[in-house]
């Protein structure tokens, strides 16, 4: 443990010295969000704030990233995000979410993916209707194109087994996946939540996992305090021994290229906030 910590610290130091301001080469954001499950064949209750959360996820990034990139690397403007995919409700079909085309408007074109909807024990639940259903990790190879990060705003995506084992089939180049082991809850504070996430990852130079965990501790937990709780998690792709993993990577240390991660899972991080329900 200690050796690993030292190596991790050294890696941070090496990255900080050798590659001070890398940033992702682009930030094309794609979202899948479902509120109206009845339109997708029902099978589960409707939600209220998932489409709004997806919009806020992009618009928070759009509010934060350009200013940050100008501040840290004046004149580049490379980090201005684009909203390359915005699939809502009935548009979130099995074929749309499993499509591996990397053309514009498809899932694999996007660097950062957002999913807002129901989750069922390490799977996406799109509805009971034909063309929807349950999407298992083996059905959604992430990263064959440009997918590098995935945030799932849904219940139990890391529940039902060891996350690094269960999600291994989906890791085909993606760097890190954020989600929950516990139940997560519909949240009308998604603007504050995702604004804090992007601020944490950029200006505050927090790691990806702490950016997500702390935003959830402050805003995802708001309606649940103090009786309930959350358990967010971050699953990283495998990294070489001397490299810091993708969950512990701040935005400015992200490689400035499109290189895919190793097609295998690595460390899994989680945080217990309050009294989560599983």
């Amino acid at each position, binding site marked *: *443990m*200690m050796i690993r*910590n030292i190596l991790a*610290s050294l890696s*941070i130091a090496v990255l900080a010295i050798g590659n001070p301001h890398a940033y992702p080469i682009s930030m094309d954001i794609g979202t899948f969000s479902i*509120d109206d499950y009845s339109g997708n064949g029902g099978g589960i*209750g*409707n*939600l*209220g*704030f*998932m*489409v*709004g959360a997806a919009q*806020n996820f992009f*618009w928070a990034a759009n*509010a934060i990233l350009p*200013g940050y990139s100008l*501040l840290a690397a004046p004149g580049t403007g490379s980090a201005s995000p684009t909203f390359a995919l915005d699939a809502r409700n009935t548009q979130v079909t099995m074929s749309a979410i499993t499509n591996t085309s990397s053309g514009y408007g498809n899932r694999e074109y996007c660097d950062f993916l957002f999913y*807002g909807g*129901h989750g069922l024990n390490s799977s996406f639940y799109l509805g009971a209707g034909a063309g929807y259903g349950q999407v298992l990790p083996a059905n959604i190879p992430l990263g064959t194109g440009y997918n590098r990060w995935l945030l799932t*705003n849904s*219940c139990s995506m890391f529940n039902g087994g060891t996350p*690094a*084992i269960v999600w*291994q089939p989906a890791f085909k180049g993606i760097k890190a996946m954020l989600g929950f082991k516990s139940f*997560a*809850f*519909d*949240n*009308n504070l*998604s*603007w*504050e939540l995702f604004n804090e996430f992007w*601020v*944490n990852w950029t200006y*505050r*130079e927090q790691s990806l996992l*702490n950016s997500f965990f*702390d935003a959830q*501790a*402050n*805003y995802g*937990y*708001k*309606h*649940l*305090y103090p*009786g*309930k709780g959350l358990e967010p998690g971050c699953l990283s792709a495998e990294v070489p021994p001397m490299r810091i993993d993708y969950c512990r990577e701040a935005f400015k240390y992200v490689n400035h290229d499109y290189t895919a991660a190793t097609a295998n899972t*690595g*460390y*899994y*991080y*989680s945080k*217990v*906030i*309050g*009294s989560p*329900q599983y």
Partner: protein
Amino acid sequence: MNKAALFSILAVFASPLFAGIPEKPAKALAAAAVDTAKASLAQKAASAAGSSGIEVVPATAAAPVAKDTAKPAPKVSAKDSAAARNKAVKDSVNARRKFVRDSIAVRAKAIKDSADARNKFVRDSTLARRKAIRDSSAARNRFVRDSIATVQKAKQDSLAAARKAAHEAALARAKAVRDSLALAKKTKDSLAAALKAAKADSTKAAMALAAAVKRANDSVVAARKAAHADSLKAAASRPRIDSVSVKRYRIMNRPLNKDQMKFFQAQFGMKDAAKPESTGVNWICRDKKGGVLTYEAGYSDLGYANETVPMLSEKEYLPDSLIRTKTDVLLKGLLKGKADQYVFSNYEITLVQKKEGEGKAAKVYPPVPAYYCGRYVRKLDERLVLGDAFQVRVGYGEGGAPQFFSFRDPALAESGPMKAPTKERILDSLGRWTKSRTRPRRIYYPYHPDSLRVRDIKPIKAFDSYVVAQEKATGTQPGAAYLMPAVTVLAEVTVARSARKLSQPQPVEPVLLHFNFPCRPESGLCWPDGKQAMQSAPPTASAPAKPSAPGKPSAPTPK
């Protein structure tokens, strides 16, 4: 011989003694002495001749003296004169020889005495020096021997003292460990006993409360028919306090100045700070050690993070009480003088799970703690401020190094008092609600996607609180966020078992939930009383798509 003649002779023979005197005065003196001696001799001879009739003619100045002398010298015979002169010469020679011999003897004796004295001095000096050398050598040897003995003794004493000190320290350490273990065990036992007792007491208290309520209700029902009017009259005249006047506060952004930022920079040991402005946050200070301190005026949120702090080591996987002990210490340093305004609420643990290999060969290790974080809530006018607007979260990694800090402390302005219910009134009301025949029977548990029903709901305890509520502008107040006084009730909710196939497992154990009185949906759960379900305002179909402001409040619905 008269004195002058003796002096002249001494002067002649003493002349060699004046070897060191310059030659010219000595010779003149000697010549003068000879002249005087001659004159004296001549005078003596003349005297003798006069008395004997012999004329004495000085050898050198006989003629002129004779010529110039008015009185002629008596005449002596030449034979007597020659004899006298010979005798005088002879005497003189003898005297001179004697004198020389004596002088030589004296001189030899003096020389001998001097040599003897010198030899004696040299011999004595040598002996004395040898003795001194012997004494010095002996003294030096003695000193060296004494020094060596002293050093050896000091060393032995020091070693003995060190051995003794080490032994005592080992004993003390062992005793401290034993005491610590005993204390920890005692604390653990007492905590377990206290928890058990508290649980038993709370359950007992709840049961007793329910029984008391039942008895009270029964007695009331029984008495109602008999003395309904009297009962109402007694109730009307009973001096129960149903509400109190409590301050409310308007929440405003808290400005932060450079000195305050410097204080926190110093607390985190930050150097080489910079202060860039940005659209995302208002202040950012970084240091070379990896720490970043930010302040967002819009959220009155001071944040610190340092991703280079290593994860906890195995020996730091501490029990909960020690987590608080650690974060309490950090908090006191960070909130100098204000730490007592905060109450520990709960803690968070960041876990890390290591995985090696791929596929079936993959090896996954158990999750272990990486960082601990304590959450503290604000206490204002003896009321707990619920929500996340007023809170402190402080986290630490290896060695207790601060890894995370979030401090939210907006400014408050008193905004006039308002009526707030008392705990007694709420508990009394809930007691009656439990036995009411008209209360709602179909209550849905809000934290499950399959709309499970609530089988039972029991109030456990109540406490005074402040909740954050968004108030509209009126003629007397501006539209803003306010801290509103409330009573929060902790209740135990039991979910009914469902025979349906569920998308998520249902909670088996009773769940603790908080309900706020009066009902403010944006602030938390409302008690299900027939007008309001056990949740905040129902989720709306349209979500807030604009990033500028949060949407309408809603109950948290599981996804």
